Structures are given as C-alpha cells and as structure tokens.
C-alpha cells in the first residue's frame, strides 16, 4: 500500500518540484499552497475532501467507476491514494530543495554541449537531484505506514486491506486486553520510522559524497 503510494506519488512529486523550482508563472503561489495544503490541513479534512472528490458520487470517483469500474473508497487503492496525497508535500519539498541546490551552470554547460531539454532533465538535472528524490521517497514511505486520519476517513479501517499501523494500534486499544498487541505494534512502528530516517540520511550522505558535495 505504502509502496504503491510512493510509486505513483514520486514521479508526480518530481514533476511538481521541477515546475515550482524552475518556472515563474502567475498561478505559482496558489499551486505551491495547494501542494502544501495536506501538510497543514487536519488529515481528517483531507480524507473527507478525497471522499467528496473520489467517492462513487464524486466528480472524479463517479467517472472512474463508470469508465473503468474502479472504486477507490474503502479499498487498498484508496488508502494508497490518501497516503500519496498526504505525503506529496514531503516529497515535493525534499526534491525541490535538491533541485534548487543543483548548479544551474551545469545545465547551461549541458546545453552548450548539445543537450536538449528532456536530455538535460534526465541526464543532468535529475541525477543531481537524486539525493532529494530518494530521501523524499523513503521519508514518504515511512510516513505512509503511519498515516491515520486521511486513511480512516477515506478508506476506512479494514484489517489486511486499508489498515495502517496506527489504525491497527488504535483498534487494538479499543479491545479489552489489547495493550500488549498495541505495544508490539508501536514497537514495529518505532523501528520502521527509525530505519526509514537512518536509511534516508545514509543514502543522502553517500549520494552527496559521490557528487563531491
């Protein structure tokens, strides 16, 4: 579920970060605010908005159901979507930072050497931003595992399908005598978060060393 969220979210985040980092256009501040909205909005509100838009009666949700027979609400795919939306700002921020850190002079050099726009993007800009992209992905993955509000609102709490770790912990706490299970799950959550953070730190360091920074 989390892998799917990052898998779909990351390319979009790269595109969005690229647009925000490199172009100045009239709607830019609004777009920037929209991207970062899930970061400040209560997750339950985000989930509810998703429900309105992607629910079977929603403008996009009804189309998906009619045309492709795809239903997102209360499914694993829906949980992925909720996670992707929630972690999108984290990814965009990390990628945008590393894009802004990459020396625009190198793109100029690539240009003078005959590299066209996409050629430059894939062979110069993205490799230079790779630390940010990887770190963004890992942190987003770890955050997905712990997503609560948006998932429970949009995709409910179905064990084995849409149940994230905190949802399972919450469910366990509702049952008498579930403390042991909750503690166990919390430990798993803690370990995963720690691994995610350390891994991202380590990868960023390695990549930056490779780039000579």
């Amino acid at each position, binding site marked *: 579920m989390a892998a799917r969220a990052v898998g779909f979210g990351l390319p979009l985040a790269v595109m969005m970060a690229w647009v925000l980092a490199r172009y100045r256009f009239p709607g830019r501040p609004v777009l920037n605010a929209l991207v970062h909205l899930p970061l400040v909005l209560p997750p339950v509100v985000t989930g509810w908005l998703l429900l309105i838009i992607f629910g079977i009666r929603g403008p996009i949700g009804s189309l998906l159901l009619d045309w492709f027979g795809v239903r997102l609400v209360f499914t694993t795919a829906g949980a992925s979507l909720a996670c992707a939306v929630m972690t999108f700002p984290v990814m965009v921020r990390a990628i945008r930072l590393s894009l802004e850190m990459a*020396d625009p002079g190198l793109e100029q050099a*690539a*240009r003078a*050497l*005959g*590299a066209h726009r996409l050629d430059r993007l894939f062979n110069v800009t993205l490799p*230079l931003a*790779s630390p940010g992209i990887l770190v963004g992905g890992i942190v987003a993955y770890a955050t997905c595992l712990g997503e609560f509000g948006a998932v429970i609102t949009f995709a409910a709490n179905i064990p084995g399908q849409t149940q994230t770790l905190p949802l399972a912990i919450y469910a366990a706490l509702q049952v008498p005598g579930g403390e042991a299970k909750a503690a166990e799950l919390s430990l798993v959550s803690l370990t995963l978060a720690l691994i995610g953070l350390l891994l991202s730190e380590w990868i960023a360091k390695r990549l930056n060393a490779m780039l000579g920074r």
Partner: protein
Amino acid sequence: MSLSVLLRHGFPSVRMDVEFEVPTPGVAVLFGPSGAGKSTIISAAAGLLRPDECRIAVDGQVLADTASGVWLPPERRRMGLVFQDARLFPHMSVATNLRFGLRRAVEARVQFDEVVDLLGIDGLMARRPHTLSGGERQRVAIGRALLAQPHLLLMDEPLASLDTLRKSEIMPYLTRLKTALKLPILYVTHALDEVAQLADSVVLIEAGRVIGSGPLSDIVARGDLPLAQRDDAGALLLCRVMEHDVGRELSRLEGGGATFWVPLLDAPLAVERRVRIPAREVILAGRPPDAISLHNIVPGEVRRITGDAARRSVLVEIALPGGGALISRVTTDAIVRLALSPGGPVLALIKSTSIEVLGN
C-alpha cells in the same frame, strides 16, 4: 578567412556596441577590465543571451544573425564553451564527461584520442571530477568542449580561478591545442601573460566598446592604447631561432625586421618563439655607443610619441623595417635631448638579458 562579430545591446547601465573582425584560425583575445562586456560577447555567441542585434560569422559561415532570423538555441549552435569554473558533471566520470558532447554531435572531426593526448588527460579517465585538481578539471572541461565538435571555441577566463602554478601547468596545453587544431578561438581574459602567450590578435574592450583591435604585436606596441600604458608594458614579436653560438653562449633570433641576441636557448633551429621586450628596458640612442656590454642595437623609426602623465614619462613607438614594432618608456627630458620626433631615425638598445623568450 576571418571571424567577424557584431553585437549591439542596451543594458540598464551600459550600452554595448561592439564590432570586430579577426583572422582565423587563431586565438582572438578579448581584453579589458571586468564589467567591460567581454563575457556578454561570449554569452551572446553561445546563444545563452539574446542581444538586440548580433551577427557572428566564421570563415563566411553565418552562425548567428538576428537581422535574418538565424538564431539557434545554444544546444543547436555547436559552440564549444569553457567557463571560468570547469562545470564538469559531478555524477559522471571524466571519460563520460568528455563524451557528453561527442555523443550528441553529428560528426566527429575532432577525435577522442587526439584530444585526450593533446591535453594529457589519459590517466584521469575513471576519476570523478571532485577528485581532480583545478588545472586537471579545466583541461577536462576544454577537452569536453572540443569533443562537442564546435565551429568556434569560446573561452571565458578559463584560467582566472587557477593560481600561478596551475596556470603555468595548463598554458603549454593551450598553446599546443592552438597549433594542433585549426579551430578559431575567442578567449576572454584580463591577464596580460595569457595575452602574451596565447593571442594572435587582440580586441580591446572598454565600457561596451572596442577601443582597438589588430594583430597582437601591433596592439601591445601602441602607446595610445591601454596595454602600453601599464607598468608591465612591452613589445611582442614572433621571432625565428636562427643560430646558436655555443662558444659565446648566445642565440640569434630574427623577427619583425630586427635581429636579437639572447642568452643561449634550448630550442631547435628555425622554430618560432614569442619574444617579449619590456618597454622600460629599451634605451633610446641617437648614434651607436661604443665600449658597451649591450648586444642589441636595433635601428628603427619613431612612429608615435605618447605622453603618460601619470608616470611622468613618455611612450615611444619604434617601427622596425620588417613591420614589427618596439615600444620604449623614457622621460620627457630624453625626448628633448635626443630631439626625437615622429618619422625620425632612432636606435633601440636592448640588453640580451632583458629579452623574454616565451613558449612559442
């Protein structure tokens, strides 16, 4: 065959209006103080900046012309660009960096092995850019630009970020490159030693204008232009090694219509060498002195006398019979005592040890 450049552009602070033509192949140096607009010319030639009006032609081939709408983006222009900072791609090895432009070029006139050999970067292939020294990095950057098969090589202060030692390490490669590849080079600098060693022609730029342009030996000996008004001013002549007198430990050079004896050189006969004669080392005389240690008494004709009020001295240009020119810095009093005036004969006395023989 020539390289012609025209550029007009209004910046908020200064208006650029530059037009010059220099012979090709060869190195044309754009020389002038920082902020004069030298780098703007390079940016426009590379297509990174679009001026109001710009035309660039190499050997009759128009590479850019705003008037007729020939304005290709940098990636389709095929201009080799070398920056002050090498700008090597940090995520690629030296070899991959070198091949970046080559892989994207249509033809391959300039061969990979030739360039690698010319720049002496054979041993660096697997290295990462950040492990190279400044001089090595700049050599790789030059190689990368050359391998992109450019029509014109643009170098924007390529040695400015290097210390004197690194600079002298890279200079021989540049002179070799210049003779080995018949490629026109537009070279920006504000260092006189780079001009002396590399330039074939010089374009002097000041406040967005060309204040003088021509062959190196003419420009450096012009008392009315800024190069001669520096403390380190001096004439430059292309001389041929004619004779080694091992017994007297002297070598005889000829160039510009004069003969010079210098301390014995370690150079084969008949090769050409650039010779620099500092203006403050040239003594003027009306008739030949006797009983003097000096070897070089060069007859010439006074071409122009320019006052230099700041240094309370006078610059005298001396035309040599073979088309070359010397320049001498003397006092105003000396002019009066010798009764020197333009068109009159004069003898230039130069100590052998004052003559600087440069690489080539």
